[in-house]
């Protein structure tokens, strides 16, 4: 058991060191692929062994592991402070110093150093390990050919890939540590590691805007770190324990402790880029695509929602819980609205990520078994579909040189494979019976008992349809009869195909995923499973029957469409005679008149610049309300 745990946390670190010091691209590729494979197997092995009680790690080379973590904590704060000095950011310096001071007081004065079991594996941890290890690995593998092409564009004298893969792999190890941690201090340490890694990765290209955005990410996340330390101290004052399992088992313990949990949730909010902290995640788009895929889908932001979800039992039934639900729902609808106004593909993905994270946090706040089920299902399925879409946008960008969805019009004509996978990815985000929508269905049913939340979810849900449908539709086009097949590197095709197949197949398996991994979490499970459908008194969803019926229907439709060469292909109706030249018609004066059509982005209603300050102000008010609710 503990060998597998060590493997999951330390193997990425070792591989990272190999990538850093051995500057051969062949060795690097091999290391990354092998690490990915081993991590995947280890995560599956851990799942096979089932959940385990909190266990102590003991000492490494004669030094107590807790002490080691403390030392590394301060070292990490030192490094972050150094970057604060380097980039002359007073915010980073201030937040880091405050963290360090509080941490010294906490370690020296407050806690009595009794042994606390460091790691634990319940259902939530195991699921998170699977998400991180498998999806994270696929993204790292995708990064191998991607970064080669990326650097070819940049004409670097000396490759910066060793450093890139170093932090990419450390990230995976830190995430595994974070989701398995049982000691609050360990959780905090891994939390800070992800902060530092994301800062370095966002700033990887070292352009002016990359540096600026990475500094913003760092100060926002340092603020989150400070909130975490404060929360940790308040919780300790009341409970006198660093043992997360024990804290959760005891439930809410009065105002002081719940306020502490509120601060920890706030830390989760910053990491999950909830409004008003969304700007750092949007800024993270400047990084190479694998980074944005990793940050958005399986790691960084999922660390934030994981923390909020992990502590859900500790604020169950309090006003804080309602506050968390409302803050999450607000982010869901606000970011969906901001998304409407975007034509930049990566920005659409970013806002949609934040929006979905809001929904997950909202579910954590609703805090019923049904809502928690919805949250965890959403974590799984969102991670798959969103990482797929990010990799698609990265592939498209390298192919057509733009990430604007207006430039992706008719992509299918030239890049059928990529376009098809993108369309499938979009549909898995948008339509039933795919996992994301089934989770959303659960979320809405769970939220129905809270009027504020349900209104926001209803609006956000409608906004979501608009921005996905128009993107999916604009990719469609007809292939010329004898067009050359699309070329794709093997290491790009592999992750895309696996993720695409995974998004579809795991959705079919959703009832069994629920039954084997989620249902045991609850004393009273929200659904019973029969014939591949999930049933409850409040409502049921026949996932597998729907898949069979709709799947057969779609197969039939595909077959009908595949015979299109026999039907007559006509130019579109233009209100005039069609000209020879594509995209024009014969207009007045018998000359060709070009025409074009674009998407509506509703600038007057959903302008990003106008809405963002309003949303930020509202969100800050809601967060204050939430924290006040803990008192």
């Amino acid at each position, binding site marked *: 058991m503990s060998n597998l745990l060590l493997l999951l946390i330390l193997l990425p670190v070792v591989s990272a060191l190999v990538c850093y010091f051995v500057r051969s691209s062949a060795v690097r590729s091999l290391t990354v692929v092998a690490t990915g494979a081993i991590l995947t197997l280890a995560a599956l092995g851990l799942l096979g062994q089932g959940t385990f009680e909190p266990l102590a790690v003991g000492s490494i080379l004669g030094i107590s592991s807790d002490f080691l973590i403390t030392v590394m904590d301060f070292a990490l704060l030192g490094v972050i402070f150094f970057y604060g000095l380097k980039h002359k950011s007073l915010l980073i310096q201030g937040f880091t110093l405050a963290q360090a001071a509080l941490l010294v007081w906490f370690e020296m004065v407050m806690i009595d150093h009794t042994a606390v079991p460091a790691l634990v594996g319940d259902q939530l941890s195991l699921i998170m390990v699977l998400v991180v290890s498998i999806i994270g690995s696929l993204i790292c593998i995708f990064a191998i050919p991607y970064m080669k092409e990326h650097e070819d564009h940049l004409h670097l004298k000396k490759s910066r890939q060793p450093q890139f893969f170093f932090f990419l792999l450390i990230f995976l190890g830190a995430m595994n540590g974070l989701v398995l941690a049982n000691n609050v201090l360990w959780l905090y340490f891994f939390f800070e590691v992800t902060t530092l890694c994301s800062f370095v990765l966002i700033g990887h290209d070292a352009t002016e805007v990359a540096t600026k955005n990475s500094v913003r990410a760092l100060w926002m996340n340092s603020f989150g770190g400070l909130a975490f330390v404060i929360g940790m101290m308040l919780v300790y004052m009341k409970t006198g324990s660093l043992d997360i399992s024990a804290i959760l088992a005891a439930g809410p313990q009065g105002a002081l402790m719940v306020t502490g949990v509120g601060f920890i949730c706030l830390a989760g909010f910053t990491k999950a880029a909830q409004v008003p902290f969304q700007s750092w995640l949007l800024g993270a788009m400047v990084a190479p695509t694998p980074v944005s895929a990793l940050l958005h889908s399986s790691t960084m932001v999922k660390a934030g929602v994981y923390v909020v979800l992990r502590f859900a039992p500790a604020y169950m039934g309090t006003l804080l819980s309602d506050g968390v639900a409302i803050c999450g729902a607000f982010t869901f609808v606000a970011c969906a609205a901001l998304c409407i106004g975007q034509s930049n593909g990566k920005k659409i993905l970013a806002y949609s990520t934040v929006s979905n994270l809001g929904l997950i946090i909202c579910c954590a706040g609703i805090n019923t078994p049904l809502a928690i089920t919805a949250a965890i299902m959403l974590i799984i399925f969102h991670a798959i579909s969103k990482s797929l879409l990010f990799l698609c946008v990265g592939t498209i960008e390298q192919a057509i040189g733009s990430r604007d969805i207006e430039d992706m019009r008719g992509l299918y004509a030239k890049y059928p494979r990529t376009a098809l996978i993108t369309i499938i990815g979009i549909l898995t985000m948008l339509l*039933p019976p795919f996992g994301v929508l089934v989770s959303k269905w659960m979320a*809405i049913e769970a939220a129905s008992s809270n009027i504020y939340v349900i209104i926001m979810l209803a609006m956000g849900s409608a906004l979501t349809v*608009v921005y*996905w449908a128009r993107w999916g539709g604009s990719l469609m086009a007809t292939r010329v009869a004898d067009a050359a097949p699309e070329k794709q590197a093997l290491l790009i095709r592999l992750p895309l195909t696996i993720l695409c197949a995974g998004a579809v197949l795991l959705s079919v398996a959703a009832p069994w995923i629920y039954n084997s991994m989620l249902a045991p979490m609850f004393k009273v499970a929200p659904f019973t499973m029969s014939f591949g459908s999930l049933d409850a008194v409040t409502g049921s969803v026949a996932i597998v029957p729907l898949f069979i019926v709709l799947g057969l229907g779609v197969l039939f*439709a595909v077959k009908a*469409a595949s015979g299109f060469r026999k039907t007559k292909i006509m130019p579109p109706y*233009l209100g005039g005679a069609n000209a020879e030249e594509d995209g024009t018609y014969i207009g007045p004066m018998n000359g060709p008149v070009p025409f074009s059509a674009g998407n509506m982005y509703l600038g007057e209603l959903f302008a990003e610049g106008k809405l963002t300050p309003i949303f930020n102000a509202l969100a800050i008010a809601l967060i204050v309300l939430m924290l006040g609710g803990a008192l």
Partner: protein
Amino acid sequence: METLILIIIGLVAGPIIGGLIAGLDRRVTARFQSRQGPPILQAFYDVAKLFGKEAMVVNQWQILCAWVYMIAAAVSVGLFFAQGDLLLIFFVQAIGSVFLVMGAMAGKSPYSQVGAQRELMQILAYEPILILVCVGFYLVTGSFSIEAVWQLDQPLLAKMPLLYLALGYALTIKLRKSPFDFSTSHHGHQELVKGVLTEYSGPYLALVEIAHWYETVLVLGLCSLFWTTNVAWMAVLLLLTYMLEILVDNTMARMTWRWMLKRVWLIGMGMSVVNLIWLYAG
């Protein structure tokens, strides 16, 4: 087994009822305008004729999209007759709407592109209301499944009058009737041509038409759930509602999508929220 029979009844009866309603609609509208109007079965003749036409497309995806639209609409009606989960039925119905839009966007025609964008605005307007109506059902019956509605001993209309009015908005938008007929219009000789339907032709237009019949039945079915205690009153309610739809259709001019979005989100959502507050308090 019983469920299966119900589903089959729904799948067969859906287009028949939908087609008859479409025929009646045209007849009544004609009378409003002092015209004779076509025979009641005209809608079926039209579709039969469309199926006989030569298949022509701008884009291969339209074939796929038209079929998926039809299939999803049929499945949602099937689910409705199977007494399934209201929210799920609504989401399955959304598959069809999304594919209709995507098919229209696949063709390069500016008219169908504009129609598709406007259709999305219509979805944006009615979706929240439909979700809130489902929530209203849940608050009254304690469940999202249609089965629970039949257990009630007083009509839902008594508890959800404002939600019914809001649903009226959604119904008008979903049926693309004036003043909300801006994603496609009844007559092709206007500035929009046929909007979202411009590039669907022949057999594929016939599929879209059948899908629309299914949708009509689904929305009217949702309305019928507001009076489940007495079949006669249910019929009266449906008749009144549809007559009102036709009246509104004939007396209103087409508005813009901005007007719709503001009006529906403010008034429609406002009414829904007020009604929900009553239900939460009650």
